[in-house]
């Protein structure tokens, strides 16, 4: 039988499905602006993200974008400025998973909320931006997709209009976001000025031919500014200050969405830009005078250390999670820090795996906070005391997330951290600075156990200070949390395929 031949633009289907869903939601909203038919809206959003997930997973399994494998369709260039390969699909899957979980969980969280359709359409619109970001391979499309992901996010953070914290967080997020966009655009313009191209592969060609050497300083500055822009998007040091404020003020499902999906989207471009446009090697060093891996080694160590130390001192659970998410950005940065001239698939693949697992465990953790907000139990560790007596299943799931984030077996977080550690050691054979990164990874993981287990202790071991009535069990939130927990655990036996997919994506990217 002739294999079904889809048109080339169909390769972007996972992202386009999200775009379409957002448009459908807009239509709903215009037909009936104050619709109270929450189920329909939420179901549409969930259906759209699940469809996106299904298509992306199907494409991955079918081998879309696999470069050389027999029967693979090769890297697909559907529209100018976009590319669909295994890397793009891998991250589209992460975005779709997080979106689906968040949408399902939001159904209960938003029960008395006035802006149902707006909320879901903003979420799906931001998800479309993130999904497109995974496939963008020109600095222009990257910028546009980045803004498409960011602008709805600002609104989402501030969506609780009557809540001062939410509005303030939205404002801060917006101002810092605007500043970082400016920095990023400036970086783009400098790179363009130095090389004359915006497409990533074209930029690489100019550098490899040595033509950019005359503008080396310009290029170097441009690269640093780009790093700054990405650091904002991924909440890495030194542009991380917005994250705790925004995550704390935002509704908890939105925090989950931003800290998981948005971060993953930021990393996928970071990976793509730095591996495709600025190839490591002699030419690069001649052009800008240093290896950019040094920048990432420093950023990785500083980000994970600062994030973890700050998280350890928090009393507010949401802020603790926010800082810990900064720490995890540091872990993911190892993926770039560990690249070498002719290798690094392992470490980059490990970083991707970490982002995938993180998509489950971090989303789940924030959704538990959403559940706690739904119950109205308060925000500090003390307020969480003894919740397990009332809600053992949800608290069991939360314990899974916490231990997984800390990197304790047998949960998914252990695997990805272990592979990051192995990748760092492998890279250390050629670049001894990576030993420091590996050490920082282990020390920070040990440190992080302190504050993660503190939450487990609050939930399970401490006695509640106040007597509580029966806690409600909202179906959507519960379902999302349990699914995330189950995935955090069963990713263990299923890690073979995940590793293969991630390593394949990394290999495709690096060659």
């Amino acid at each position, binding site marked *: 039988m002739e294999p079904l031949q889809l048109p080339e633009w169909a390769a972007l289907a996972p992202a386009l499905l999200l775009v379409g869903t957002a448009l459908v939601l807009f239509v709903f909203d215009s037909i009936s602006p104050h619709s109270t038919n929450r189920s329909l809206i939420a179901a549409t959003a969930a259906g759209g993200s699940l469809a996106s997930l299904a298509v992306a997973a199907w494409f991955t399994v079918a081998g879309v974008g696999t470069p050389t494998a027999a029967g693979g369709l090769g890297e697909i260039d559907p529209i100018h400025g976009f590319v669909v390969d295994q890397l793009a699909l891998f991250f589209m899957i992460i975005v779709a998973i997080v979106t689906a979980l968040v949408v399902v969980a939001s159904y209960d969280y938003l029960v008395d909320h006035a802006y149902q359709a707006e909320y879901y359409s903003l979420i799906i619109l931001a998800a479309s931006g993130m999904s497109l970001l995974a496939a963008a391979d020109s600095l222009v499309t990257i910028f546009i997709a980045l803004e498409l992901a960011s602008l709805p996010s600002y609104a989402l953070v501030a969506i609780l209009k009557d809540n001062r914290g939410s509005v303030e967080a939205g404002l801060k997020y917006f101002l810092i976001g605007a500043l970082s966009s400016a920095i990023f655009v400036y970086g783009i313009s400098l790179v363009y000025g130095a090389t004359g191209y915006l497409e990533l592969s074209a930029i690489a060609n100019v550098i490899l031919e040595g033509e950019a050497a005359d503008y080396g300083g310009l290029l170097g500055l441009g690269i640093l500014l780009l790093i700054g822009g990405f650091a904002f998007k991924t909440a890495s040091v030194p542009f991380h200050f917005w994250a705790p404020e925004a995550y704390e003020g935002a509704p908890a499902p939105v925090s989950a969405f931003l800290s998981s999906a948005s971060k993953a989207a930021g990393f996928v471009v970071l990976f793509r830009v730095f591996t495709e446009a600025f190839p490591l090697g002699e030419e690069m060093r001649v052009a800008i005078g240093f290896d950019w891996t040094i920048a990432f080694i420093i950023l990785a160590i500083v980000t994970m250390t600062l994030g973890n130390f700050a998280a350890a001192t928090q009393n507010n659970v949401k802020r603790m999670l926010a800082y810990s998410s900064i720490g995890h950005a540091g872990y993911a940065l190892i993926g770039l820090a560990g690249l070498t001239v002719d290798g690094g698939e392992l470490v980059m693949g490990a970083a991707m795996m970490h982002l995938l697992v993180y998509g489950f465990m971090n989303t789940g953790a924030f959704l538990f906070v959403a559940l706690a907000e739904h119950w109205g139990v308060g925000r500090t560790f003390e307020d969480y005391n003894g919740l397990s007596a009332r809600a053992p299943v949800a608290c069991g799931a939360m314990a899974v997330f916490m231990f997984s984030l800390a990197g304790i*077996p047998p949960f998914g977080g252990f695997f990805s951290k272990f592979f990051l*550690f*192995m990748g760092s050691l492998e890279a*250390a054979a050629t670049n*001894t600075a990576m030993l420091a990164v590996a050490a920082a990874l282990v020390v920070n993981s*040990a440190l992080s156990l302190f504050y993660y287990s503190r939450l*487990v202790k609050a939930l*399970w071991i401490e006695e509640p200070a106040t007597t509580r009535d029966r806690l409600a069990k909202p179906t959507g939130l519960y379902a999302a949390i349990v699914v995330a927990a189950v995935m955090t655990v069963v990713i263990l036996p299923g890690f073979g395929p995940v*590793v293969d997919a991630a390593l394949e994506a990394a290999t495709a990217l690096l060659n």
Partner: protein
Amino acid sequence: MMIEALIAVALVGALLTFIAPNRVAGKLAFAISLIPVALSLWMFATFDGSGNALIDGTLAFESHLEWIQLGEYSISWFVGVDGISLPLVVLTTILCSLAIMSSWTPIDERESQFYGLVLFIEANLIGVFTALDFFLWFIFWEAVLIPMYLLIGVWGGPRRKYAAIKFFVYTNVASLVMFGAFIALVFGLGDVTSFALPEIATAMVEGGPDGLFGLEGSTLAAVVFIAMFLGFAVKVPVVPFHTWLPDAHVQAPTPASVLLAGVLLKMGTYALLRFNFTMFPEQVETYAVPIAAIAVISVIYGAMLALAQTDLKRIVAYSSVSSMGYVILGLIAFTHFGVGGATFQMVSHGLISGLMFMAVGVIYNATHTRLVTDMSGVADRMPIAVGILVAGAFGYMGLPLMSGFFGEFTIFFGAFGSEALAYSQVFTALAMFGIVIVAGYLLFALQRAVFGPYELETDYDVTRAPLHDVAPMFVLLGLIILLGVAPDLIFEMITDAVDPILENGGDS
């Protein structure tokens, strides 16, 4: 697929128990836990392995599946048992069942969660003793921590939070040290492309690591040996890394203490035997004297500490430090009887310490005190429980025809004649002095606590313990005597697996 079945039954049972209603959880967990007991006994009966699992042995119930391919390194689901691991697997399943039954009385809140965690621990413990891939093994090794942390933290005594966190932090940091060192070793072994322990052991014996990060191969091996020894020493625990143990034991609920002393401590000595003593025969010889010194200090110091306690449970806890010191001494002797006796002692101590903790727990349930100074003459009111406590104490002291005697005797016999260990006679003689102290504090404590006129002032009605409290202790006592009378039930199996290790360095 027997081992998979064992682990799966415990895991599924844990899940079922977790969601079952509180009032049936205890019975349900016990019923489920009988399946692993039956399976492990069947494995014991049909065991057809020979030699050491890591050195060209024939494994029983082996299964080896590709799991993850990570660059050039492969990770596999690789499990199997040899003569060292099988007795420990049987010990685990039996002790878990008995611990569950002995929890019926003391555990009276959140039962379903409690029993779920116990079964979860059982699954991981079986995994630790059967996994033959480092990665897989480490998963089980670490996964034991979480349920134990919760068991101590939720159901423990007044200072349970402190004890739980101390336990967790201590053992986790130790694991990380060991883990980092071992990964560095695998990278240093140029030809090794998997985490399978037999492959690593073979490579270690055949030439050792090439070196890594500018370290010479021999330096790397030494660093890894020491880091791993420290990592496992905390788990065993040996002096001076023992301070988490009394806290954890005293605060833990009885069944958790039983598992902690009975099986968790054996994880440390088992890992020492599997990793340090099997893979690094040269380093064992180099560091024999300091390790033997640590062992002897643990024996004497642990016993002295036990002597100074007034809390019955603390006495039993510190005596574990002392007993595990014997095991280390037997291992470092590196002889047929030394290592074999040490492995036998792991099983024996698991049974005896489990029995002691259960007996103390039953007495505590009735009297609500564990202080030797408070109670007197409990024997009048609870003759059976006290009788068992006394019998357990005699087992601890090494009464002939009980398993403790055979374990300690073979260890001393093996250690005395050791050629690998310098000054072995001195070390052995010093360690033997520990027996005297053990007898001293046990008899002293028993004499004050349980005999004499009944003077306990308590509001509780001190009466005979119910059958389901006493039955598990009778089973344990029976096993202790069985192994004491017929040690060859497992000793042959053990030495068959131990001897190949000695051929690489020791004097068999």
